[in-house]
């Protein structure tokens, strides 16, 4: 599964949402994901991919697509992708 697919699957589990219903470009708050829930979710994403997203980067993440870009970049930097 590609990075976005894995993120979507994680998000679907974390927030009890159908993965098909998750629009990667939708703002997270419209998906019912508040800031605290998102920080907890990020923790699990970091565990899943073995990467770290900085606080500064975190502030720029508004959608699941943004998140995928950061995770992909972190994977590339770590030579994992």
């Amino acid at each position: 599964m590609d990075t976005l697919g894995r993120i979507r699957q994680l998000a679907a589990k974390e927030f009890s949402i159908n993965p098909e219903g998750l629009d990667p470009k939708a703002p997270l708050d419209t998906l019912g994901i508040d800031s605290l829930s998102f920080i907890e979710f990020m923790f699990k994403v970091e565990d899943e991919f073995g990467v770290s997203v900085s606080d500064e980067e975190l502030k720029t993440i508004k959608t699941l697509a943004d998140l995928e870009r950061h995770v992909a970049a972190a994977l590339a930097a770590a030579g994992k992708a």
Partner: protein
Amino acid sequence: MVSPLGATLEEFHRSLAAGRSGIRRLAPELAARSGVQVGATLDWNPAPYLKEGEAANLDRATQFALGAAAQAIAASGLPMTDRERIGVSWGTGMGGANTLEASYQQTYGRDDWRMRPLTVVMSMSNAAGSNVAVRHGLRGPFANYSTACSSSAMALGEAMRAIAAGRADAMVAGGAEALLTPGVLAAWQALRTLAPADAGDASASCKPFDKRRAGLVLGEGAAAFVLEEESAARARGARIYGLLTGYGNSCDAVHMSRPDRDGQVRAMKQALAEAQLTPRDIGYINAHGTATAVGDVVEAEAINAVFGETAREVRVSSTKSLHGHLLGGSGALEFAAVLLALEGVLPPTGFLEQPDPACALRHVAREAERISPPRAVMSNSFAFGGSNVVLLAERA
């Protein structure tokens, strides 16, 4: 009701009436690490109350609280129209013990200091009550009481006060506890107050008021109630399970763990005075009765001091022999037990075969006793720290 004796109030009452014990041997790994052999554990199924991903982000105690509160609110039929006039009054001894202990295992145990972000809001003492408020949008008064074993009895009493003071029309009141973790069990074991497994029958390990008693057995669960003015409940035709009419609250101010007869006497007398009842009106007492050597004797003396001659007649039992000691959750759970007694079914002190003469009480031993429904019943909750709470319930 989320208890070792059933997942609904009806199941809980059926188990009590049958004198069935929910105490059992702990899982081998848990027993090996903590040194504790038995507990009143429950097989928790969060599915009716929580969405699939939610449980992972809520402490076990909070999950129990959400289950119990959802049941109570549904049973009350309370119209949830003005939620600013509905509050939450909750009790817990150790709050999110599971979350906190898991985080300690990770940090100190594995030297892994990358903590999950929800650690604080999952483990804080008010997490259970606050989640009940959030889940149901209850924007009235909120309080969380943490006075060890009297926590949720106090939550009920103070909820009654909040309504009487006009601060709320209704209160969701209860308590939850989930601390059957290796660390908490080991800490209790160190106090030398926990009963070992009964050699013949693990479910019979807790024997309050019995000469053979060897200490308490810890349990887990939650119980919740919806309280409102009697007139309001009657006006809307609600099913009234009982009337909470007396609340006594005193502090021994003597010792952290040794109970004090006079403090208990004061709390019982306060509750009777508030309800304008005499000892003769009380048909049953659900004792604190933890099955410790000292505690049971002091409580028996306190009951005798308050009830005098009437103590020969008033039936007493400790249902902790069956559901274990839920600590902060026990007051609310046992208030649910006295509702059964109001119907004339007195739950027994399980396994009480050799009453200790030093605990001179009219015991309901081993099997439930049926009497004509009493006018009023009493529930005692006495805590470490010297906090004494007594609740009185009357038939509607």
